[in-house]
């Protein structure tokens, strides 16, 4: 027992203590967290200074007033809020939305001082255009011409049977793309307003009537009404399964390579002089299970922190986390047995590939079934997949974290099936391991492995 523990401990330390593990596994999410924390600060700092004027030549003479109105700082801010509210609305709640909007406003508007300079309707395009160029590279001042908007008469009142003329917007190359957008928007709206006015309609009133109402969508739960977010609902089961997959496969791969290394560096027989093959197998699997649990805990923890930052903890049922742990043990237990058996049978990673191929194909299936199963977690297809041994834990995690409740009996049933699967796989793996670990030379194929299982 103690020997198994020592084998497990060595396996865990040898895996987790490497630079490769820290760089490849732990660092990316940490870096991502750091970037997400620091980015807003950097952005706040780096809001570019925009100062100058936008010139307008309104040949129709009817759009200038509206354009000025839409370019006023308050109007720009209001429009931005409207857009953000439309696009990112369901994903973030009010607190976060407010913060995000403030940030976005800061980024774009920041210390901007943009005024509108109205040029005579008959001003010369070419001469005014030249002024954009003369301002380039000079220090910011109100005299800098950031952009020139030319509104042809035909854009407001097109000739009979013709399409309205295009608006022309010329701007400095360095002008931030958001500002180009703001100017485009203001000009377009101004022209539409002018057209409405020309037809005797009240633009402000019509805009008010046309504005699509906002929605407040909530799902009803026992704990109260919770904001619904369709996107997250679809993503979450996938995230759960992916998490399981990553944890199982990363640690499974470590198990495979460490077994191959012990065999090819001929340290295995030295170890076997002190412990039995079964103790080595169990110790190694336990050690890598700890690595997998560390990964699972680490990524799941990072995910939970992320969700709580966006006040979306309600999406996660704590019971699901428990199931995730149980199904991890089942998935890892069975796959680790297979990986250890393959690792013990071959002499290098290249030889392992040919044996891993069919296994990987089976195990990629849950990834491919992700979408049909979350769309309909209780379809016959999903239920059948839940009882197919190697993919069962992945499919169950997908279904359990989905929207529809899974028939309760299926949870203990699949867990029991999983346990049986682990025992069977461990039995077969132990037999292959005992023979394969001291067998050098020609790499075995599947038929040989089956022979070994029968032989030992």
């Amino acid at each position, binding site marked *: 027992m103690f020997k198994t523990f020592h084998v497990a401990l060595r396996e865990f330390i040898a895996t987790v203590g490497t630079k490769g593990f820290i760089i490849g596994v732990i660092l990316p999410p940490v870096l991502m967290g750091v970037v997400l924390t620091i980015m807003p600060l950097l952005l706040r700092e780096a809001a570019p200074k925009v100062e100058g004027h936008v010139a307008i030549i309104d040949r129709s003479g009817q759009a200038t007033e509206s354009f000025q109105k839409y370019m006023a700082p308050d109007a720009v801010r209001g429009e931005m809020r409207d857009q953000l509210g439309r696009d990112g609305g369901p994903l973030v709640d009010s607190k976060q939305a407010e913060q995000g909007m403030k940030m976005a406003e800061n980024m774009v508007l920041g210390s901007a001082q943009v005024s509108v300079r109205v040029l005579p309707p008959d001003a010369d395009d070419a001469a005014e255009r030249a002024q954009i160029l003369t301002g380039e590279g000079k220090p910011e001042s109100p005299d800098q011409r950031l952009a020139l908007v030319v509104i042809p008469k035909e854009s407001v009142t097109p000739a009979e049977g013709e399409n309205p003329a295009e608006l022309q917007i010329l701007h400095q190359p360095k002008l931030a793309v958001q500002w180009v957008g703001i100017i485009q928007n203001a000009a377009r709206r101004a022209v539409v307003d002018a057209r409405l006015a020309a037809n005797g309609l009240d633009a402000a009133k019509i805009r008010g009537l046309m504005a699509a109402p906002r929605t407040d969508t909530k799902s009803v739960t026992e704990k109260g009404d919770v904001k619904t977010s369709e996107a997250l609902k679809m993503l979450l089961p996938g995230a759960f399964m992916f998490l399981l997959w990553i944890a199982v496969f990363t640690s499974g791969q470590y198990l495979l390579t460490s077994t191959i290394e012990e065999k090819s560096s001929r340290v295995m027989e030295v170890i076997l*002089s*002190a412990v039995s093959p079964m103790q080595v197998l169990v110790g190694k699997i336990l050690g890598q299970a700890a690595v997998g649990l560390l990964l699972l805990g680490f990524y799941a923890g990072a995910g939970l922190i992320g969700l709580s930052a966006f006040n979306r903890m309600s999406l996660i049922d704590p019971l699901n986390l428990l199931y995730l742990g149980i199904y991890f043990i089942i998935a890892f237990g069975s796959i680790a047995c297979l990986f250890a058996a393959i690792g013990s049978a071959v002499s290098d990673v290249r030889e392992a590939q040919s044996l891993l191929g069919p296994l990987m194909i089976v195990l990629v299936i849950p990834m491919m079934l992700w979408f049909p199963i979350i769309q309909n977690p209780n379809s016959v297809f999903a239920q059948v997949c839940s009882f197919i041994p190697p993919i069962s834990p992945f499919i169950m995690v997908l279904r359990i974290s989905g929207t529809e409740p899974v028939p309760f009996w299926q949870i203990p049933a699949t867990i029991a099936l999983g346990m049986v699967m682990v025992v069977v796989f461990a039995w077969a793996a132990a037999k292959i391991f005992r023979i394969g670990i001291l067998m050098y030379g020609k790499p075995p194929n599947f038929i040989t492995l089956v022979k070994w299982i029968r032989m030992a």
Partner: protein
Amino acid sequence: MGNAIEIRGVTKTFGPKTAVRNLDLDIPEGCVCGFIGPNGAGKTTTIRMIMAIIFPDRGDLTVLGRPSAVESKDRIGYLPEERGVYRKMKVGSFLNYMGKLKGMDSGPLDKTVREWLARVGLADTYRKKCEELSKGMQQKVQFIAAVIHKPDLIILDEPFSGLDPVNRKLLRELIDEQRGEGRTLIFSTHAMFEAEQLCDRLFMIHKGNKVLDNTLEDVWARYDPSLLDVEPAMPLAHVDVTPLRSIPGVMNVVVGARSIELKLQSVDRAQAAMTQVAQTIAVRRLELRRPSLEDIFIQLVGGNEAALRGEKEEGGD
């Protein structure tokens, strides 16, 4: 004294090949036993069965009084033929790990590890990674791993391969020391010189069959060639060998490149024959040849060698 190892009727096959056939073997406690035999003879298979790493198809094994080495692994030290180290692990950690796997208390273990490293001249490698060590140094580390827990039975599979003469000598001394402490030692080797120097008993296996199992003295007596080696004082060409043929007890005379070989009827006739040879010709050297293990080895596997060369099989003893 009882037997450290008892093997009764053990057979092990790998597919169509019989690696060990119906083997009986007793190894008394406290002796040093050499396993010799050509490559692929079944030495390592026998050792692995003793270690319960593989299991016999038929027959029984008793190791240190138990039916399987699994039950007494902590009392056995084993240096396998296929040996390696964890390349990325530090030497000190590796030996500590091995000690723990052998059931040693972690308290005094580290001190023992450092003492052992100092003894084999590797004190400064404690913090080095195993991959930084030369092959010979790694072998010494592996030897320490095999004996650090003071086992009653030490099994060394080819311990001398890959060692330079200085380290061979060191290893001989270490093995001698283990013998001095009353431990039972088994080592397989192709190094006949080391076997002659160290063994009390010899066990030889050839094509899975036991061909020799005796004390070194008995082996020598049994395979005594009864040969007198005569190196004349004058050049060989000037020596008349006819009088030598008529010496009583001499069966045959062969003139070699440097010396003349006199085959005697028995070793009992050696003393009289030697006196007569000295009286017949002037000799620089006169020696009653001792059978070398190498000769015995070649004699025992010779039939096979001859068959390989396509010659008529003469058959060994």
